[in-house]
């Protein structure tokens, strides 16, 4: 598929259907964007698996960290890549050795590798690049508007309230 532009429906379908998300390059430092992401996805009910060889065997936000994708003890629906663009081909190779294969490979803002994406797609894996799942989730559920960000979503449907005072979930549309 063409990368750079994704329909809201494509992103929503991915975020509404994946349950277990491995975050390659997750940091235990509480001010790092990857830490924000792990914490946010956990709060939305995802089973988040941090992957970071330097932190393996320890927890990030209560989630156990693994040294590599191969070490993870359960099937992974989505692999989110918090590494530079040059590291993406290696991550895709690791993904292709998993059984079952992940359904989605997602790379963070500024992380982009067209050839690696093509390779993953040739194995039936959906790819999203140069996006942040936290921003996309916040945009599609409406939460991101609370900080004045243009969601570019226009809808006459009520946001889906989750448990708690200020938590939205994804509507299925």
């Amino acid at each position, binding site marked *: 598929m063409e990368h750079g532009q994704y329909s809201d429906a494509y992103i929503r379908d991915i975020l509404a259907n994946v349950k277990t998300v491995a975050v390659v390059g997750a940091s235990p430092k509480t001010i790092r964007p990857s830490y924000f992401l792990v914490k946010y996805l956990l709060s939305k009910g995802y089973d988040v698996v941090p992957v970071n060889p330097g932190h393996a065997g320890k927890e990030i936000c209560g989630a156990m960290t693994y040294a590599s994708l191969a070490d993870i003890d359960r099937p992974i629906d989505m692999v989110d890549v918090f590494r530079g663009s040059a590291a993406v081909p290696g991550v895709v190779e690791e993904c292709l050795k998993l059984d079952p294969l992940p359904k989605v490979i997602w790379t963070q803002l500024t992380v982009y590798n067209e050839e690696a994406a093509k390779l993953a797609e040739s194995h039936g894996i959906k790819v999203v690049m140069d996006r942040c799942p936290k921003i996309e989730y916040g945009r599609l559920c409406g939460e991101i508007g*609370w900080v004045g*960000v*243009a969601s570019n*979503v226009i809808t006459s449907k009520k*946001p889906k309230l989750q448990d*708690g005072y200020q938590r939205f979930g994804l509507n299925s549309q």
Partner: protein
Amino acid sequence: MSQKKPGFSTVAIHAGTAPDAATGARAMPIYQTTSFVFDDVDQAASLFGLQAFGNIYTRITNPTTAALEERIATLEGGTAGLAVASGHAAQLGVFHTLMQPGDEFIAANKLYGGSINQFNHAFKSFGWNVVWADAENPASFEAAITEKTKAIFIESLANPGGIVMDIEAIAAIAQKANIPLIVDNTMASPYLCRPIEHGANIVVQSLTKFIGGHGNSMGGVIVDGGNFDWIGSGKYPLLSEPRPEYDGLVIHETFGNFGFAIACRVLGLRDLGAALSPFNAFQILTGCETLPLRMPRHCENALQVAAYLEAHDKVAWVRYAGLESSDNHAMAARYLPKGAGAVFTFGLKGGYDAGVGLVSNVELFSHLANIGDTKSLIIHPASTTHKQLTEEQRATAGAGGDVIRLSIGIEDVEDIIADLEQALTRS
């Protein structure tokens, strides 16, 4: 909605205002509260640490205000907005985020008189030094750039001189110098001009004017164009350096292409405090829905009134970019193809005294210091908005003693012209 990009009117009515999540209220509720309950201490910590989206305290975020921010950001084609107490507060927020004491910025010499005051006085006391450039000569902006220059500031349509700025030429100069271009888009509104599409990096506006339309609520907004590389430029430590306010978080790295708006909120508004009232946000949001209906009428009426005045024997000149006689007509066709706005100036042959007479004799026009109302407004800048400037500064700003500024409303144009006719006859 389908993936096709919605049109301007649809955005003006819908952006930022899905039905209320708690009640289904279709109008945006007024969340008239100072503070918001936390689920638990962990969620509170996430909110204070900027790890989660959500509301803590209305000085920083509020759902009603946020709806307005999202709507204006979308109308301007930006990534995010920050609404504040006034247009002046918006400018303070922008420069606080960009400037350190001793830094310079370049501003067009044709600006709203209030901005000239703010830059010459209040900003100088912070050590932010304005350098003035010739609004009609883009090369003068380039010539004024030094090592200390952190930004260029212009109005898309200058108040009150009626100058249409060459946004693209000045954006190119800013880009070459690796500094952001800030455009005050108050006079045009995003209906007539979207400066980000012409290369601007930051847009500010007084929401008090055309966006609200009714003249009942103060407000201002900062819109992040999402198109400036703050980390790459390395000149803006609030955006590119670890921030002690947030344990060493780097704003641009964390918030990407809406980092500037976040910085203005969590480093600026949080500490400077010029928050917008949620009630004002609601009023402005409601007014905004009719912006695409009001602006064409404003422009049509203004053009007819300008043409009437141009033919009047007591009038020396009319400066309205919508008139073919205007030096700015070609520039208006390029940047304001849907109309040259509602505000313009004209000169009375009778000078200062005739100006004072005219504002005293009008009966439909309101003599006051605002623009962009549905009502027609008149002011004699030399005796009011520009009174605190020197005579030379007034002349440079297009506000000499003979100058009258009109903001043409959306009443019946025959009535607007009849009021001017009777007042000119008596002046």
